[in-house]
């Protein structure tokens, strides 16, 4: 394991340690975000560190006083972390209005969490067409002004530089995924997904350097013959490292995914021709959508089917957080599509505040037994 890979893996025990150290080193500001539609490049260009908050496995105490019980544990545990002081290193947060819950959490957070800076980015519901692009451009310009007024100036050339760094990171992560699809044995699923997740916790140019070294190390490693059953996993946030390790232990390996903390995080690069704000807007409106948004001409089920085929996966797992409406609404038609193609799939529902890997183990093993024709 290379030095860089070890350093990045160590971060998993205390994910915000890097951000705290960075703040001490540079005196810069940290701005939290939750969604991969957040315009990180703008925050980065202002000299601040975008830090992704994805909740954590914990029994909540304070958030229950502010949030209904029927919202997802991403919202519930993130708010709890803020209210108990676990995110005191943040100087502000940006809320992208991804879904109803995040939209409402924004106000609750603004009123109760007490950070100096609060930004909102309201995405169009329907992502296609000139109207969506124009709207997105205006919204991002607005956000840029807010960041300039409160965090630091965001000039075009610095923004273009940040975009290049982000594109580089996206390219590196895409390369990591390519390497893994060819030979899943080079790095376990949980480590590969952590490399993506860590990108949202570490400053981009520093992450690029570490990622380059880590990838070079993986390329140099001897390919071990891998007998594991190839799987495709889809969902929103994937932060259950024990679950991923368990999947490998029982004989599966995740060769590709559709997670917002996985593939969707680095999917597509910002076009560099033209205005940087327009470029960022284009990337957000043109790339493959998540279930929270609507692209009329895109058929998510077909897209997933294609990617499953390309990755050589023999089965799929839908890893969903309880109370996540957008993902749940998409599920039946995607399952139907997979059933019609004879691709075995499994639907798992979990919550951050009550994870039971053992119960999930039986289900995953049953899926593998079905795939193996047991």
């Amino acid at each position, binding site marked *: 394991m290379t030095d860089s890979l070890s350093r990045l893996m160590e971060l998993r025990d205390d994910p915000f340690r890097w951000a705290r150290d960075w703040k001490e080193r540079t005196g810069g500001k940290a701005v939290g975000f939750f969604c991969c539609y957040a315009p990180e490049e703008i925050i980065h260009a202002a000299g601040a560190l975008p830090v992704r908050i994805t909740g954590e496995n914990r029994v909540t105490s304070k958030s229950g006083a502010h949030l209904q019980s029927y919202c997802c544990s991403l919202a519930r545990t993130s708010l709890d972390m803020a209210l108990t002081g676990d995110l005191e290193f943040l100087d502000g947060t940006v809320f992208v209005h991804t879904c109803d819950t995040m939209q409402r959490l924004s106000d609750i957070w603004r009123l109760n969490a007490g950070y100096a800076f609060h930004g909102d980015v309201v995405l169009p519901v329907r992502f296609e067409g000139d109207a969506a692009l124009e709207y997105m451009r205006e919204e991002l310009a607005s956000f840029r002004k807010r960041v300039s007024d409160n965090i630091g100036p965001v000039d075009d050339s610095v923004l273009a530089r940040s975009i290049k760094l982000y594109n580089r990171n996206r390219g590196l992560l895409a390369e990591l995924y390519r390497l893994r699809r060819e030979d899943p044995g080079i790095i376990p699923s949980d480590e590969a997904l952590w490399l993506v997740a860590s990108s949202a916790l570490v400053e981009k140019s520093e992450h690029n350097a570490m990622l380059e070294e880590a990838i070079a190390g993986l390329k140099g490693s001897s390919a071990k013959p891998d007998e594991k059953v190839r799987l495709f996993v889809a969902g929103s946030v994937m932060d259950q490292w024990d679950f991923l390790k368990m999947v490998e232990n029982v004989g599966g390996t995740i060769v590709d995914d559709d997670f917002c903390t996985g593939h969707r995080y680095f999917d597509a690069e910002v076009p560099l021709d033209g205005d940087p704000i327009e470029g960022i807007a284009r990337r957000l409106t043109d790339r493959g959508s998540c279930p929270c948004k609507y692209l009329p001409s895109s058929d998510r089920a077909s897209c997933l089917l294609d990617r499953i085929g390309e990755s050589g996966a023999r089965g799929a797992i839908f890893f969903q957080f309880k109370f996540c409406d957008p993902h749940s609404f998409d599920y039946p038609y995607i399952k139907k599509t997979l059933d019609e193609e004879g691709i075995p799939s499994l639907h798992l529902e979990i919550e951050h505040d009550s994870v039971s890997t053992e119960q999930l183990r*039986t289900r995953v093993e049953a899926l593998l*037994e*079905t795939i193996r024709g*047991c």
Partner: protein
Amino acid sequence: MPVAGVDIGSLTAKAVILDEGEIIGKSLVMTGHNSRIAGRKALDLALLDAGVEESDLERLIATGYGRLSADFSSENITEITCHARGAHATHPEARTVIDLGGQDSKAIAIDENGRVVDFVMNDKCAAGTGRFLEVMAGALEVELDDLGAISLESESPAPVSSACTVFAESEVVSRVAEGVNKVDIIAGIHQAIASRIYAMAVRIPVNERIIITGGVARNIGVVRALEQRFETDIIIPEMPQHTGALGAALIATERAG
């Protein structure tokens, strides 16, 4: 050459010894707090029943909740696959297996070869399981084994609205205090179980014939209530609690051969 299947469930551990496809021995013990010891005991008793030594066994597969603790077996298969295989073996016409165990419930869609097509499990709550029935038997001061038959005597079941075992018990106690006929309450409980199981099962394709396995299959009231819900007759196998162990033993036979 004999083979064995051991199903270590959360409430009971079962073992089946097969030789040339025939059941030559079986056992059932309470699991208690130690799955490993319970599995061992189930195996030993089944071997005794069969008149066979462990060293005579060609293959041994463990299944069930406690399968990983079975130190006597290096092979384990999920109870989902084993129930599918076991149900198919005794009733090849079965296409939906409803397994109602001590603490969990599952519905398994199987094909004409006994292979799993789809499944759904509920191990988050006890509604519909043996535990639920035990709690109710206690609250009503009735023998667990009599509950099913009593439920069939009712002409007007008293609805139980709570989905949760704990709240349902509370509701039952209130009904008794109100003077509602015990027989009607018991019928109401069985209908509540059937509703819960039905709601879970319809998440997978449900095709005839439906077969019920697990300890709760011995409760005729649950079976009848489920038949009403699914609008079809449900098969009750001769040894519903041994389906998993039988399936494990059958897979052991396949792998040995």
